[in-house]
């Protein structure tokens, strides 16, 4: 029983991450019609904004201690972080909370990146064939990746969670299920965070005039333009929004998965699968598919199931994708006519 409950939690947590990544992609892909192979790179950039933020916070004053030597005969370096020398306890607090606090940096930076990307590149590709969009965004993804590799190296860089949420929550006791049901606080935080972001994006598109115009524009760009509304400008912002969603998803994920420059590519295929299973042009579909795949993946990894179907956990995502797409022509909630030709 506990095992199943825990796998549901795992599934929700994973699903939250998948949904968040897919949400950003579907904004650019399902609504603007751009096959954005650089979406994984945006996720990666978000993660490295956090890494960079932490690096800056932990910049150290290097003093040489000539009395001690390293094994290769140079004086030993004594390092003290600047933040702590300048701000004392507050500095230490900042370092401790560097992952969540970094969102202050991640959001504006990713918005800028997204807008720059749309203005500088994507805009010129709206009317080009999807093949060209793939090539140019894939090229961009590689370039971004290599730049990060050049500055941060190829190894994963660990990020720690704030001390207060570093342990596990005793979930069992909340529901009266006994003490054996525990779950890491940070994963619960991540789940809650993804729920908030998803809800905000929906609310933004649903209840603001801006959102309404964008939704109308997705439906019929010419018509909206004829009404004298500058739909282009709004699309730029939607793309920026997609970049922010991808970026914060990556930033908050760093304590769970120490990021390296390649992390975006690992999520790229998955995010496309989630978006398409959800159905093109449907935000709700992407989110639903994210949670569905997350939960199914968790369950398929249980020993009981793997002993009957060996290797099922390796292929479950793709198997579900095949079944869904064959049973439902446009995925779970796809709109007619979006990217079908």
């Amino acid at each position, binding site marked *: 029983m506990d095992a199943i409950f825990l796998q549901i939690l795992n599934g929700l947590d994973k699903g939250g991450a998948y949904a968040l990544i897919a949400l950003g992609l579907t904004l650019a892909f399902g609504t603007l019609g751009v096959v954005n192979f650089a979406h994984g790179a945006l996720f990666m950039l978000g993660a490295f904004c956090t890494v960079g933020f932490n690096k800056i916070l932990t910049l150290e004053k290097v003093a040489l201690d000539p009395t001690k030597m390293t094994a290769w005969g140079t004086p030993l370096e004594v390092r003290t972080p600047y933040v702590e020398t300048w701000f004392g306890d507050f500095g230490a607090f900042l370092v401790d909370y560097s992952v969540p606090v970094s969102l202050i940096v991640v959001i504006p930076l990713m918005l800028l990146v997204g807008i720059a990307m749309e203005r500088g590149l994507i805009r010129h590709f709206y009317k080009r064939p999807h093949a060209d969009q793939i090539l140019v965004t894939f090229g961009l993804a590689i370039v971004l990746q290599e730049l990060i590799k050049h500055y941060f190296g190829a190894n994963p860089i*660990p990020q720690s969670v704030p001390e207060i949420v570093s342990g596990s929550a005793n979930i069992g006791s909340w529901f009266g299920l006994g003490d054996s049901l525990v779950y890491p606080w940070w994963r619960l935080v991540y789940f809650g965070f993804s729920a908030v972001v998803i809800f905000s994006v929906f609310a933004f598109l649903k209840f603001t005039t801006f959102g309404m115009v964008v939704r109308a524009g997705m439906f019929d760009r010419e018509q909206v333009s004829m009404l004298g509304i500058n739909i282009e400008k709004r699309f730029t912002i939607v793309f920026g929004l997609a970049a922010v969603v991808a970026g914060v998803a990556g930033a908050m994920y760093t304590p769970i998965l120490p990021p390296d420059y390649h992390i975006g590519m690992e999520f790229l295929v998955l995010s496309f699968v989630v978006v398409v299973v959800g159905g093109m042009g449907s935000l709700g579909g992407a989110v639903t598919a994210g949670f569905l795949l997350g939960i199914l993946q968790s369950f398929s990894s249980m020993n009981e199931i*793997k002993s009957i179907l060996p290797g099922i956990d*390796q292929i479950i995502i793709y198997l579900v994708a095949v079944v869904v797409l064959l049973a439902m022509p446009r995925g779970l909630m796809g709109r007619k006519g979006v990217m079908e030709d």
Partner: protein
Amino acid sequence: MSINDFKLDRRLLMKSGLIGGAALATPMHFIKDAHAEDFCNMPKGKSVTLGFNVPQTGAYADEGADELRAFKLAVKHLNGEGDGGMINTFKPSSLKGNGILGKKVEFVTGDTQTKSDAARASAKRMIEKDGAIMISGGSSSGVAIAVQGLCQEAGVIFMAGLTHSNDTTGKDKRANGFRHFFNTHMSGAALGPVLEKEYGKDRKAYHLTADYTWGWSQEKSMRQATESRGWKTVAAVKTPVGAGDFSQYITPVLNSGADVLILNHYGKDMVNSLTQAVQFGLRDKQVNGKNFEIVVPLFSRLMAQGAGDAIKGIFGSTNWNWSLKDAASQAFVKSFGAEYGAPPSMAAHTCYVQTLLYANACEMGGTFSPTGVVKSLEGFKFDGLGNGPTEYRAEDHQCFKDVLVVQGNEKPTSKFDLLSVVEVTPRSKVEYDAKMLGGSLGPVNAKPC
């Protein structure tokens, strides 16, 4: 030697002259050299070319970069530049510091991408285009086995880099290939006694195993080593390579009744699964009245950096660590650190040592011929390369030496000081019969290419 070498040599003119139907009918013309060649890529000029094939892109790029640093340092030392590093401690040594057999050592590099196909393509380029006579490097067993097979076919020597699978010198061993690194069997044999001493006889272990050949082999070795000491194996679960998030495999551990988790993962999988296992509070748990423990059979300092604080107090094994205090290790660390400002990783160490051993074997036999090199290396006993007395066993071309058991440092004094050596398991404890792992070396290939 390089892409900017535009000259058309006689060999090429011959080839081009023969293009057409006649040439197709008699293709042997293409591969016969104008000069007589006793063996593939026999050095004819004043230099000899070695091929260093390391991952430069992908997950192991940092490890590859460190290997490349070590290779460059080895070449420097062989050519008599720099402080000589471990050449000064290596014995019995025939190295003279004037290159190999009087020829200056040059090298070419390539990117394995940690993919068998790319690694073989890169090695082939070194052999076919650059005239490399020995290939070394690599950071995974799949690549090592693939390149070893290629070198056997081509008739050059392969000095394996980082490869830990039993198969490299077991089922897939080749006469032209040599491995200095240790293997999963030795890891298990070395860890067994330490785990028994630290955690007792009555333990229940849960294995998470990367679902490919190395993972399976590591799991098998660990089970042998622990079960023979009274431990029980509660479950052994295979996880997909590159799973990223391992939560769905970790939660079942929580209530399985196991009190030890053994992570048969390497590289990024190890970083991720270890980080997450610690987040799930496994190390704070009490099970069966004992502290819950995590074991990582193969530890790499370079990769362990990625796991941050999670590695503190965790046991594993390693081929070499820069904190060793013997004269050879210190000489190497000094030389490497002075050159690059950081201590070498175990991958760097093994690559440096392999280059020296190859050069020494050429000097011993007085020839570059693979037959001579293999003869000199087989059964070669040496000391002063950082692992104490070591032997290249003739039966399977595997090095036998003491194995280090290490533990993640609780209080690291620098970002390099992550592991401390807790035990040096003597060679006799980790040795096994060469027949145990199967396979056969086959004949040495020393034919012209």
